């Protein structure tokens, strides 16, 4: 986590490590502003970018922890869909929105708990376990919803989710609040410190008295909770619960974490970076819509940008 050099003066590579992702974000915004000034300088540009990014940021926050312990969580998209579908059914069935959302998030936690239990009990890599549960949770969503969408949420829910404070939509406030809580967890709690230790060196962690299985379990529960919250936020944005919702979202979540500087080998990364990563992806998406790039081509550009930005990051970080 603390990558510091011998010299007391701050080198360029250190600056890059700390603020590089912010730099990329600003650069992208500048490019966009130059290319399409007439559209870019509109009041709701910020709102749109934030609103498009918030679901991804929330999922990526959970994904960050899974990657931090040198694992991965491929089931996040399915957890978003299943917990969102559950919340939607409850609300449509007359349960108060706040309670319905709480129960939906709780379901997300349970699904994450199951991932953790399976990883611990089988000893298999989380990639395999969550590849399996991705399919299982998606299948459960289809069965539970009878393969049809659910809509007609109470106005109190849709109105609340449509609100904004200044230019910041509620969905983004939720995502930033979650990021703040998790940043506190990573920086200030023993739990957070132990998770970094576990990700850095599992054997050393065991000899230092860290309960490996318990911490693995907690990490997957955190990921489940984040996806559960994302599920509710997605309902507010789309206005309905789709059985195929959030399909493939794990890719963007992983991309956000990696662009944000999280090491795929575990033990290194920051919440701030993940939020930046999520916003960068949001800006790229928004920008391509603004520049009327066809949706098929968008995929290609996105993929190239992921590879490009991480390569650039490594290149600059390794320069002494």
């Amino acid at each position: 986590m603390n990558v510091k050099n011998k010299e007391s003066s701050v080198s360029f590579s250190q600056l890059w490590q700390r603020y590089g992702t912010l730099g990329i974000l600003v650069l992208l915004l500048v490019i966009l502003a130059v290319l399409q000034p007439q559209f870019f300088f509109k009041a709701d540009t910020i709102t749109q970018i934030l609103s498009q990014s918030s679901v991804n940021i929330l999922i990526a926050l959970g994904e960050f922890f899974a990657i931090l312990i040198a694992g991965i969580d491929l089931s996040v998209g399915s957890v978003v869909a299943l917990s969102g579908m559950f919340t939607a059914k409850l609300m449509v069935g007359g349960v108060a929105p706040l309670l319905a959302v709480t129960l939906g998030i709780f379901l997300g936690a349970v699904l994450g708990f199951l991932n953790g239990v399976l990883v611990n009990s089988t000893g298999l890599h989380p990639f395999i376990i969550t590849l399996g549960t991705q399919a299982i949770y998606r299948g459960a969503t289809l069965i539970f919803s009878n393969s049809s969408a659910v809509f007609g949420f109470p106005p109190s829910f849709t109105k609340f989710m449509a609100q904004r404070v200044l230019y910041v939509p509620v969905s983004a406030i939720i995502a930033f609040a979650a990021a703040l809580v998790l940043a506190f967890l990573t920086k200030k709690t023993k739990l957070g410190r132990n998770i970094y230790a576990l990700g850095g060196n599992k054997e050393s962690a065991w000899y230092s008295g860290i309960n490996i299985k318990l911490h693995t379990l907690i990490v997957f529960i955190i990921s489940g909770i984040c996806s559960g919250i994302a599920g509710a936020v997605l309902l507010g944005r789309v206005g309905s619960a789709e059985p195929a919702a959030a399909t493939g979202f794990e890719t963007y979540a992983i991309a956000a974490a990696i662009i944000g500087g999280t090491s795929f080998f575990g033990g290194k990364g920051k919440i701030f970076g993940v939020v930046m990563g999520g916003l960068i992806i949001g800006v790229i998406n928004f920008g391509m819509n603004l520049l009327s790039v066809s949706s098929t081509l968008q995929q290609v550009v996105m993929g190239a940008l992921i590879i490009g930005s991480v390569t650039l990051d490594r290149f600059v970080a390794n320069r002494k």
Partner: protein
Amino acid sequence: MIRIKTLAEMKNVVKKFPGVTALSGISFDIRAGEVHVLLGENGAGKSTLMKILSGVHKPTSGEIIISGKTYEYLTPFDSYQNGISVIYQELSVINELSIQENLFIGHLPLKKLGFVNVVDYDEMNSRAKQLLEAVGLNRDPKTFVEELSISEKQQVEIAKALASDSKILIMDEPTASLTNSEISHLFAIVRKLKKQGKGIVFISHKLGEIMAIGDRVTVLKDGGYVGTKSISEVTQDDLVTMMVGRQVAKNYQNPDADFEKETVIFEVKNLSRKDEKVKNVSFKLRKGEILGFSGLVGSGRSEMMNSIFGAEPKSSGEIFIDGHSVKINSPYTAIQYGLAMVTENRRETGFFHNFDIAENISILPFIKDSSLGGVGGLVSGDDEKLWSEEQIKKLNVKCFSPRQLVAELSGGNQQKVILGKWLAAQSRIIIFDEPTKGIDVGSKSEIYALMRSLADEGKGVLVVSSELPELLAVCDTIAVFREGEIVKTFDYRDATEEKIILASTAQKGEG
């Protein structure tokens, strides 16, 4: 009189690594139809010498003569071409392939199929059958290697050497992980190979074995050549005398100390493990005493320490701290009782490469004082600073700042940081497993002095080491391990390298 045919000869071989001379003018030769034993303590230079013969290392000076041709150095290919094969302790067979594929990997028998060469499996199978017969392995050549036992894998390795028509087989501690019946089977194969005129280099610590299988023996000590003798004219005692005699600059014991009247601060009673690596071990540690554990690699010392510390399970046994029985079932519980373990492999089980010095030191006190079994509570930057600065100062860690990454430090300073994390957590009983492995001489003496001052402060110090001079210079009492049991315990005043080696290498029933 049989005519002696020399297969390979090494003359005055010198090998220098930056800062150390690993070999200082060694001469060694291998004759057809003999078993030439290479003997010496850890770090004596046996492996380096054999790596020069197999082309892994380039000698600094000296020459190698094989079938009349003189080489300044061998490449791995030269070595292979001249029929030299090494059977390493960590077997290099590929588990995912069948026996026959392992035997012929790199030179698979081929046949023409139209215009392309394809693998001739029939040819491979029939040749593999002959080779397996030659080494007495009764297995279908199509069996996957992962299904084999360690001794069977070793037989595959030997067969592999025969497949490439090797004339010289170098066996690096081949009996280290074999049972007695497997060893006699291996010896039968070795004798058969001898009859076929192969030259065998046999690296081993086990004196009884050496007497049984060897024809000649060459002893190395600290990279120097001690001598070559015919086995028939030496005794085990002679060999021990040739091996020992290294010195540590000074002793760290207090010659007037008498621990008999001190209180017992740590005790282990009847400790056993299911895998039989530790069998019914008991010992006591008294206040101020440093207790060392000697024995061959694989004799069960590290396994015992891991079981005491709760990192690996034990099947039975009791542990007492200050006379109170304690239940330890994980490192976390061990830490709560004040146990500490400085493990053998710093990189794998010691420090966190992603953490700086301060974070590495503070992780333990944070965990020890946490709520909810190590999970609950906040980290305090002030504590982190305080603890790390205190340990850096106390242990004289050479670093730019507590915020430097541990991975950037030298081995000795890394070891001090690891010790620092345990001291910061107020540990009372400290287990050191090979505490100076890969550490320079200067740092070694610093670590010895630290161990002594910890014992003087009233902390319990247990040391596992394969370096006899180290144990003799630091420990007050030395327990010798053999095959999972303590076979002998010495007061350091009565202990000598000879006595310890004899106790740790004697076969069952002897000594």
